[in-house]
């Protein structure tokens, strides 16, 4: 059976608190913290982007798998902040990881779902026998316009998953996708910041797709919420995944480990994949895990996973998500944040 043979995650060290952003715009920080359940978010450094995040996560995925990079036959990177408009992120990442040149590489885009999309295709190529190993990465340095609600959540980070057939750390038991045309969030060509439909992003977009995908995969696999030890849903803020999980019958205890958004922010394509990495950092053999992503536009991918006996020893070979969230951090002022996110116009 195909499954995850290696995984890795990366979260930048810089942080900005919700309080600091609220202060800048004269908003009440307590209402943000209560309303969105966001304490702080990661901020990519000036020298960090989707490519560098993907390399950092990919290196840990290869280390945990202990696989020769030359045996990786496909590499897909899902992001909505690829550094180039024309020229793939994947070619840089493949060279840095020592993958290729005999490799199929593509950049994916589907708002916040691009990461699980990359994982889905990587898994399918391994399943089909066309390649021995395939890597799917979800990473973003998310954009949120100044003084927009997104500014409290849009952050940087990502996770990489290497799929194979031998020495599997996590079995993939089932997959399911649910997609409709729903204009809840978009960015037109040439625009710097994305726009969203306000409250329209909730019921007809996030909740409809996440809940439909989760219900669909539960029905297809014949499993119930209580059959899982962990569940992670896409995390645009702290509140949405809790509400979706509750509506589906999952408890806070099942969602606690993967719901890293409160101190990481929304890493868009890297959101639910990084939540999954946090779960794999602690999961025990036999534990079942549900991951359901969401990408505006709109769609959700769901995977039912089960940890194998190999997982506990292999996870020691890479950095854990908690070590990056709770480890060395640098807290930025709003001014430093504006500089880091290139929101300041210079006179060149």
């Amino acid at each position, binding site marked *: 059976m195909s499954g995850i043979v290696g995984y890795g995650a990366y979260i930048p*060290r*810089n942080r*900005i*608190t919700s*309080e*600091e952003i609220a202060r800048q715009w004269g908003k009440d920080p307590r209402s943000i913290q209560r309303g969105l359940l966001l304490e702080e978010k990661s901020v990519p*450094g*000036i*020298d*960090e*982007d989707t*490519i*560098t995040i993907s*390399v*950092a996560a990919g*290196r840990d995925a290869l280390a945990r798998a202990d696989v020769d990079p030359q045996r990786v036959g496909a590499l897909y990177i899902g992001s909505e902040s690829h*550094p*180039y408009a024309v*020229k793939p992120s994947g070619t*840089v990442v493949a*060279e*840095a990881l*020592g993958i290729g040149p005999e490799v199929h590489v593509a950049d994916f885009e589907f708002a916040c779902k691009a990461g699980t999309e990359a994982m889905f295709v990587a898994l399918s190529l391994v399943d089909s026998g066309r390649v021995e190993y395939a890597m799917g990465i979800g990473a973003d340095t998310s954009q949120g316009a100044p003084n927009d609600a997104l500014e409290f959540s849009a952050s940087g980070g990502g996770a990489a998953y290497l799929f194979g057939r031998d020495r599997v750390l996590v079995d993939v038991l089932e997959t399911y996708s649910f997609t409709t045309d729903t204009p809840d969030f978009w960015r037109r060509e040439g625009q710097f910041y994305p726009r969203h439909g306000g409250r329209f992003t909730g019921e007809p977009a996030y909740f409809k797709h996440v809940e439909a995908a989760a219900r669909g995969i539960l029905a297809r696999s014949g499993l119930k919420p209580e059959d899982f030890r962990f569940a992670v849903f896409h995390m645009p803020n702290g509140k949405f995944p809790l509400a979706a999980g509750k509506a589906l019958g999952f408890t806070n205890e099942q969602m606690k480990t993967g719901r890293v958004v409160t101190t990481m922010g929304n890493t868009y394509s890297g959101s639910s994949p990084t939540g999954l990495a946090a779960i794999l950092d602690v999961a025990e053999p036999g534990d079942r895990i549900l991951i359901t992503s969401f990408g505006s536009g709109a769609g959700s991918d769901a995977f039912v996973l089960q940890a194998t006996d190999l997982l506990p020893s292999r996870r020691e070979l890479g950095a854990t998500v908690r070590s990056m969230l709770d480890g*060395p*951090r*640098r*807290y*930025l*002022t709003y001014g430093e944040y504006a*500089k880091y996110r*290139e929101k300041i116009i*210079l006179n*060149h």
Partner: protein
Amino acid sequence: MPSPRYWREIPGRYRLEAGRCHGCGKVVYPTRRICPACRGAEFEPVLLSRRGRVVTSTVLRVSPDDFVMESPYAMAIVETPERVRLMVQVTDCEPSTVQPGMEVTLEFRLIRKEGQSGILCYGHKAVPVVAADTARSR
């Protein structure tokens, strides 16, 4: 237009690929045609460990144009376990905290952009193993 030179240096810049001399075992980075120790001309490729120690460092406050947004920043000579020394930027820390003997990892980062519309140049920078937490807003 430095793009062709940057492209030629990708193995060294992206993967820290160095050369080990067949004759005397010395590891050279970047790779060379002739070994500086024994004048041997045959090398095998080796990947440097992505960790090392700062040998010496300085802080740049007046930087070249491409690095204005990053200044002030620290530059350091870092020695890897293969006894190779390379000069790298030190990132994710207060520049003044970079001192000789400091343990660092070598991380893949964006080094510079070729202006507003040119290519993006990647390579490795040093990151302190225990970063200085400025904790300014806490």
